[in-house]
C-alpha cells in the first residue's frame, strides 16, 4: 500500500475513490490505510506549496539558511539542543548534518531585521550554541522537488496516431 503515499505525495487532493481505482483496491481499504498512516505519523499533514514570489505584497517574508555549531550534551547528543532551537516558530526547518557545522536551520521573518534579531538575541545566546553563520535566501528556484517557475513547453498536437 506504499503506492498510496507516492500518489498523495504528488497530489494530496487525490480522493480515496480515485486512488482505489488506480491501485485496484477497495475504497474502504484505501481509506483505512490512509487513516493508519495518519495515526502512525507517516503522513504528517497535508499542505499547499505556495510561491510567495508571485504575490509581491507586504506579506512577503524573508528566509535565511543558518549554520549552527553547537556543543553536544552528554546523554542527549544533539537532540536536546536541537529541540531548544526548533521549537521557535521562526525556525521552519531544522536538520542535523555531518561536516563542518552541526545544525542547519531555515529561519523565516518579516524582514532582514527580524531574522537578524532572532539570530543574535534568541539563537546565539542559547547555551551550547558556539557560533552561527547566516545566509539570506535571495531566490527560490525549486523546493521539495517542485520547480516554482512555470516551465514553458511546446503544446503537443491535439491528435496524433
Amino acid at each position: 500500500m506504499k503506492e498510496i503515499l507516492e500518489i498523495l505525495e504528488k497530489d494530496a487532493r487525490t480522493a480515496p475513490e480515485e486512488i482505489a481505482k488506480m491501485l485496484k483496491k477497495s475504497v474502504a481499504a484505501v481509506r483505512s490505510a490512509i487513516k493508519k498512516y495518519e495515526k502512525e505519523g507517516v503522513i504528517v499533514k497535508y499542505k499547499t506549496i505556495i510561491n510567495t514570489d508571485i504575490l509581491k505584497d507586504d506579506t512577503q517574508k524573508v528566509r535565511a539558511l543558518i549554520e549552527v555549531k553547537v556543543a553536544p550534551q552528554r546523554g542527549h547528543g544533539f537532540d536536546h539542543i536541537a529541540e531548544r532551537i526548533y521549537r521557535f516558530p521562526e525556525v521552519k526547518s531544522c536538520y542535523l548534518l555531518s561536516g563542518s557545522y552541526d545544525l542547519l536551520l531555515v529561519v523565516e521573518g518579516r524582514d532582514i531585521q527580524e531574522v537578524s534579531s532572532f539570530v543574535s538575541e534568541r539563537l546565539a545566546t542559547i547555551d551550547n550554541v558556539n557560533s552561527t553563520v547566516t545566509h539570506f535566501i535571495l531566490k527560490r528556484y525549486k523546493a521539495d522537488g517542485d520547480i516554482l517557475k512555470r516551465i514553458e513547453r511546446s503544446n503537443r498536437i491535439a491528435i496524433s496516431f
Partner: protein
Amino acid sequence: MMEISKCVQKMKPSGIREFFDLVMGMKDVISLGVGEPDFVTPWNICESAIFSLEKGYTSYTSNKGLYDLRLAISRYLKNKFSLSYNPDQNILVTTGVSEAVDLALRAILNKGDKILIPDPSYVSYDPISELAGGKVILVKTTEADDFKLTPNLLKKYVSKDLKAIVINYPANPTGVSYTRKELLALSKIFVDNDLIVISDEIYDELTYDFSHTPLATLPGMKQRTIYLNGFSKAFAMTGWRVGYACGPEEIISAMTKIHQYTMLCAPIMGQLGAIEALRGSSGSVLEMKREYKRRREFIVSKLNEIGLSCRMPEGTFYVFASIKNTGMSSAEFAKDLLYKEKVAVVPGTAFGEQGAGYIRIAYASSMDNLKEAMARIEHFLK
C-alpha cells in the same frame, strides 16, 4: 497540369482529415487523442544533448548511425532480452520507427507481394505497404478475440504466396500485447509459412502485466524478423526522431541502401540524446511506467463504470473502448464529444474498418486531465 502519382492518389489521407482539422481549430480541448507521452524527455537526456551541441556535434553521422549508439543498442538488447545483434552488421539507426517501417517494407516487397496487416492497426503500415508495391491483406481482428492475432485466425489468411506480416505489440490502438506462450504459437505459423516478420515493438517498455518477449528471441524467428524499436515512447523522446531496426545482415544492408539516399542519417542531436537515454534513464522510464499503470487502472475502471466497455489493455497508453451501445458511429461519437464536451478522442475507424464501434483513448495525459475528461464523457453519455 501536374499529375500526382496514381499510387499516392489512391492513398487515404492519414486517419480522418476533417476531424483532425476540427480538433486543431478548437480551443480549451482536453485531448486524449495524442499518440505520445505527456512527460517531457528526462533532463539527463536533454542536458547531455545540449552539451554536445555546445561542443559542436552538428554534423552528419555514418549512414547506419553513430557507432556508439549502435553499440549501446546492441548491449541494451543483449542485457535485457539476451538478444544479440552485431552493431556493424545488424543494426540501423533510423529517423524514428516510422522511417524504419518504410525502409523495411520497401526492402522486402516486390510488386504484388502479399503482406498481412492486422486490422485495426497503426495508420502507416497499410498505405506504406501499398506504396512499396505490396498487396495488403487485412487480418480482421475482433473484440471476441481481444483484438489479438491468434493461430486460428492467421490460418485463414496464410497462403503459399504470402511473403510477410507486420505485427505490432503492445499494439496501437488497442493496447493489446502477447505473452511468450501466445507468441510461440504465432511464431510456429510464421516459421511454417516462411514469412518475413516486421515486428514493431516500440511500446515494449510499456507492458504492465508480464515481461515483454521480442519475437526475434523465439526459435526460428531471428533470421526472419525485422525488429523495430525506438526511443519515442519509453523515453518520451517523440520529437527527437530516433528509432532503430535490427535484423539479418542482408536485410539491414538493403534498408541502409534506401536510407542513405532518402535520409542519409538520423539527426545527430537525437542520436546523442539516445545514447544518454540508454546509459542512464532506466529510473525515469520505470517512474513513467508506474504512473501510466495507475492511469490505466483508473481509466479502464472509470470507462466501464460509465458504460463504455473496454478490456484491460496489457500495454501502451491506449484504451480501445466500445461505443456500440450509444448507437453512434465512431466518427459521430468523436465529433459530438468534441463539440459538446471539448474532449478529443480518435475514432476507431482511423485504424481500419474493424475499429468501427470503438474509440481510442490515450491516457498519456495528467491525472487531473483524465479525471476531468472522464467527468465530461460521463456527462455526455447522460
